[in-house]
């Protein structure tokens, strides 16, 4: 078909088409190179602005637990702890739920039409703006945490994770909302990993007499495991970088805490809060914190992508 048109068209036409194709190629090249250049540019300019702080505090920036712009002491350990803690606890909640939904949606428990609707609704969670999650957290989650927080600190306060003081704006509140926010990521990627498990494996499992649940837990989940791990890592990256909802809910405290019920702070929240009025060394220290956050999320996302690629390869191998 393509050959015949090329033969019948005049040389002029052909050149025009050739030119259009070249132009398209150049444009796509420019677009993709621009993306890479922008990323490098962002990292470099943050690095440049962060340099005075890097020179002044070096590695101690990461282990020092005092952040006090007033005294020019900058350490981000409490914020690293808050970032990892809130994101980690959110995953602890979201992972079992997300994988359960993924299994439910990839099996034929319900007619396809119903499954499609559920899948659509879960993925719609990703479309809600994070400030709306924040407001919802203030209106709904905070009162719940307030009413349970006091009880938990009284009965279980001897455990460091339930240590007082209990406040509504706390690591727990932020984690609960974050869990909901990362649920679509976990569900969507885990579902496609489960769907991608070759039919032959499932049929083989049934053939040797396994029940449906044995097939799910002993064949499907292990085969899809790398995909689920990738989903978890990508969700972790998303949770770490989340700013608005977390800043509205976590209590923005620069003090180091291990308690889920106490206010904490995250790197992203720190930046959002303090950048506007910062000057001098504080700007540089905030840039250093931004650099840390960018590199952490980049690393996490790269790790997630690598695992995801590896999975696709293994599954292709089984086929």
């Amino acid at each position, binding site marked *: 078909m393509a050959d015949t048109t090329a033969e019948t068209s005049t040389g002029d036409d052909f050149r025009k088409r050739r030119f259009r194709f070249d132009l398209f190629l150049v444009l796509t090249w420019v677009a993709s190179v621009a993306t890479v250049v922008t990323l490098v540019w962002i990292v470099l300019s943050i690095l440049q602005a962060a340099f005075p702080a890097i020179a002044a505090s070096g590695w101690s920036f990461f282990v020092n637990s005092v952040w006090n*712009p*007033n005294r020019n002491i900058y350490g981000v350990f409490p914020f690293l702890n808050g970032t990892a803690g809130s994101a980690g606890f959110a995953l602890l909640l979201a992972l079992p739920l997300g994988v359960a939904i993924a299994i439910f949606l990839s099996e034929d428990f319900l007619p396809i039409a119903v499954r499609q609707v559920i899948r659509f609704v879960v993925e719609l969670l990703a479309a809600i703006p994070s400030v709306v999650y924040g407001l919802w957290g203030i209106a709904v989650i905070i009162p719940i945490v307030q009413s349970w927080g006091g009880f938990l600190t009284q009965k279980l306060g001897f455990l460091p994770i339930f240590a007082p003081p209990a406040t*509504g704006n706390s690591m727990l509140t932020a984690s609960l909302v974050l869990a909901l926010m990362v649920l679509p990521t976990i569900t969507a990627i885990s579902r496609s990993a489960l769907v991608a498990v070759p039919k032959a494996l499932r049929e083989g499992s049934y053939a040797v007499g396994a029940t449906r649940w044995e097939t799910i837990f002993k064949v499907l989940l292990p085969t899809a495991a790398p995909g689920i791990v990738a989903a978890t890592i990508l969700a972790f990256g998303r949770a770490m970088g989340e700013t608005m909802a977390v800043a509205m809910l976590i209590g923005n405290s620069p003090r180091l805490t291990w308690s889920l019920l106490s206010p904490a702070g995250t790197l992203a929240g720190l930046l959002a*809060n*303090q950048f506007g*009025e*910062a*000057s001098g060394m504080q700007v540089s220290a905030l840039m250093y914190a931004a650099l840390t956050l960018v590199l952490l999320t980049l690393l996490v996302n790269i790790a997630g992508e690598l695992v995801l690629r590896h999975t696709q390869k293994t599954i292709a191998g089984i086929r």
Partner: protein
Amino acid sequence: MKINSFRVALSLIAASAAAYSASAQTKLNGAGATFPAPLYQRWIAEFTKADPNIQINYQGVGSGTGITNFTQGIVNFAGSDAAMTDEQIAKVKQGVVLIPATAGSIVLAYNLPGVENLKLSREAYVGIFLGKITKWNDAAIAKANPGVKLPDTAITPCERSDGSGTNFVFTKHLSAISPDFKSQVGEGTTVTWPAGVAGKGNDGVTALVKQTPGAIGYVEYGYAKNNKLTFAQLENKSGAFVAATPESGAATLNTTQFPSEILRAWPSDPENEDAYPIATFTWLLLYKKYDKKEQLDALKKFVTYGLTDGQKFAAELGYIPLPQEVVGKCEAALKSVE
């Protein structure tokens, strides 16, 4: 036909150009402190209604950003709750004139259902924000409130998580009355609080106080009034308990002594019996020299309007009108702008 439409287009362009030059407007851009922004917007609205040839913008982006923009020459004027330090002034090559434009009190709003007219001694409110007083029925609070039934609720201090002029004024006051506070926390636009939760902006703190039983937080008087928050009477230097009102704020401002060379001072701890302890000016930052005559004239007109007629909107919006004496000093300072 073709020529005809071309002519029409040409004459249209010419006409619109003429119309444009006839209504040539003088534009002034300002940015800075969020606290006085509602009042400045009101001034701008009223002022440009009377003089539509002048167009003024003011963006409430925060004192720090305002000062940065002002230093870089991006704006024609700026607003700041913390004025400008000598170091910051030295960086502006056109020179700087500081004009106190309005003033406000900072109140301690609390959430303690059933308890109204709470009185807080100096010892009590410093102790609360240092994290030393943790229960509402603490002896230090009960002593000043005989007959009031204080609950056994935990105190949750609510603070500003962002850098702000409110932080600066509040911590400056606490540092002035408590050596412990000065050594442990200190004064500044961003400080590290030893206890409590923090929210972004006056509205963030307001939300925290409203939602948390047992909370106490510092917000601008106007915010507390608009949001119907209950706020405490504070003990001043003379030992009297004073509620924040425009009158008690004005009594505080009257005690302020400006140095002769620059209109910059904070009434950190007034002595008068009727003075509310935490009140502050907020400043307009102008350059000493402007290149464009029409901008200079427009700006002078606008600031003069704000200092005189504009002051009547202050009380209505929750600010403290400037004392007459200060207005006089401001007008004198404004004359030095060229």
